[in-house]
């Protein structure tokens, strides 16, 4: 095994650990809605929410990096350039994440000054990590880019997938620099901040996961390189074509010029079109292989990605993307519902698929199957769907009572928060969150023990 693949295993293990912290922080955030006095004076809701969202960003990022470090040496046919530096930076990265989390939990607040911005919290949603840690992320991503581009340069071998990946690393790195400015004009600040949040999520990350899924399809189903590269070009072009200017749907109500209502609405409304093409592609691939594969967990997580992306991004997104509806729905649990579903479908399922693929190679198993992964798959997906359904109901209540009837006054906010539909939605979300957490425990147990059960699984997989 290449050293970069050993590094990949560390990144994927770290990703799974952070996935667990994200789940716990999410459960805590959900419980605050049911019992607002929970941990009163000890750990406030906003800290739990920061931990939930930031660990989500980091576990997915580590998952992507792990997947790429796994596939790249096979792609280039050699060890990656600068691997020693990458190995050191993994520990720096993981240590920095731990330090930031401890500071969030223990220190929590700072004054509105430069010291707080550098050492406690940047105060910018989703990129709250203090400035020293944000600089660390830039260094890690720069070394990651060096590993990829440097190796391509040394080997003089650039495939279609690595070419797309290398081009994508430039905006991935440059856009993160948007995490740093502290602009006092809120409209201007949000304008640029969305370049990071939206364009990472709906542009550069989409390309990353596209490259990762292309390699996964080649290894999992034996699809030819020519086909996956052709589809990678088409799907990346379509996703970027709609996703980049889809940025405008975040500009509706932040004080940006009104033409963003048209641009944002139009390009966001087009976003489901390429997602439908991806669903057709996934079903075609599954059907032509008669659902047969040597790694059923990876295969099913791959399918879940195509459907989850369409439902979460396409269906849930389309409900709220046109400005006339978005006026009432933005910032409610409705958008939270969309966010959960879309992130799960577009990214988390893909990373889990790669992890099962890596586990199969690591343990040297011909077939991967069994029963436990099915329980984990079912609990995680049912838990997620239950959560987004419950959040949707709560979001409806908020948009209906607080926004449309009440006109967004403070009294209307209270009426929305105490509305029975909202409250019951929050309770239901927590219950399904527990199911999701149970699915996570089953997932970890399965990933840890699947090697020990190898002979049984190999037989079961062969029978399937």
């Amino acid at each position, binding site marked *: 095994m290449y050293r970069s693949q050993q590094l990949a295993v560390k990144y994927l293990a770290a990703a799974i650990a952070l996935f667990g912290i994200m789940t716990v922080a999410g459960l805590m955030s959900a419980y605050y809605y049911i019992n607002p006095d929970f941990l009163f004076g000890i750990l406030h809701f906003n800290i739990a929410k920061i931990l939930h969202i930031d660990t989500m960003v980091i576990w997915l990022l580590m998952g992507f990096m792990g997947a790429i470090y796994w596939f790249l040496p096979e792609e280039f046919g050699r060890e990656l350039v600068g691997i020693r530096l990458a190995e050191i930076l993994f520990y720096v990265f993981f240590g920095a994440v731990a330090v930031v989390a401890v500071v969030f939990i223990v220190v929590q607040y700072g004054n509105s000054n430069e010291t707080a911005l550098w050492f406690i919290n940047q105060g910018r949603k989703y990129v709250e990590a203090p400035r020293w840690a944000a600089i660390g992320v830039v260094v890690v991503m720069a070394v990651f880019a060096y590993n990829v581009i440097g190796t391509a340069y040394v080997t003089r071998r650039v495939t279609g997938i690595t070419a797309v990946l290398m081009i994508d690393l430039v905006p991935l790195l440059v856009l993160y620099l948007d995490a740093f400015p502290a602009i006092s004009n809120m409209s201007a600040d949000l304008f640029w901040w969305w370049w990071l949040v939206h364009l990472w999520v709906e542009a550069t990350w989409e390309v990353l996961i596209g490259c990762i899924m292309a390699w996964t399809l080649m290894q999992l189903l034996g699809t*030819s390189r*020519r*086909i996956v590269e*052709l*589809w990678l070009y088409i799907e990346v072009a379509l996703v970027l074509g709609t996703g980049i200017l889809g940025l405008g749907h975040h500009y509706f109500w932040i004080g940006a010029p009104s033409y963003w209502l*048209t641009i944002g*609405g*139009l390009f966001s*409304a*087009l976003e*489901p*079109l390429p*997602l*439908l*093409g991806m*669903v*057709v*592609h996934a*079903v*075609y691939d599954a*059907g*032509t292989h008669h659902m047969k594969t040597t790694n059923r967990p990876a295969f099913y997580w791959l399918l879940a990605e195509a459907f989850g992306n*369409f*439902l979460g991004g*396409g*269906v*849930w997104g*389309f*409900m*709220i993307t*046109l400005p*006339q*509806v978005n*006026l*009432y*729905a933005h910032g409610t649990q409705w958008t939270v519902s969309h966010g959960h579903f879309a992130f799960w479908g577009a990214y988390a399922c893909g990373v889990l698929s790669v992890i099962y693929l890596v586990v199969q190679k690591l343990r040297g198993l011909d077939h991967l199957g069994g029963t436990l992964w099915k329980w984990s798959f079912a609990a995680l997906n049912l838990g997620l769907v239950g959560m987004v359904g419950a959040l949707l109901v709560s979001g*409806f209540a908020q*948009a*209906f009572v607080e926004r*449309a*009837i009440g006109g967004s006054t403070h009294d209307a906010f209270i009426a929305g928060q105490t509305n029975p539909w909202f409250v019951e939605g929050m309770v239901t979300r927590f219950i399904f969150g527990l199911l999701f957490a149970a699915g996570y425990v089953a997932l970890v147990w399965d990933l840890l023990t699947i090697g020990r059960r190898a002979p049984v699984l190999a037989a079961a997989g062969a029978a399937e």
Partner: protein
Amino acid sequence: MSEISLLQSALLLGLYVALAGSYGLVYTIARLQDALILHRMACILYGLHGLTAIAIVAWTPLQIGWKGLIVASSAAFLAIPPITWRFLQRTHENEVRG
């Protein structure tokens, strides 16, 4: 937009895309299995999608431009599965020949 039409519009928009996705899914399975009943089901699902588009145009207070976009998107949703299918088949056939 009234509070009732807000929920009606949003739910119709969600249903509109969900039915387009269902049509694409069933169309692809129908082509894979070459089953007449599934082909018919795909037609029915697209018909329901079309009815949803008509309902959005007729009953929601969305501006005329967005309604035009809904109609145009319906045409695109109809075309995407067969075009994708044909393209997938051609690339796979070329691969086998090549």
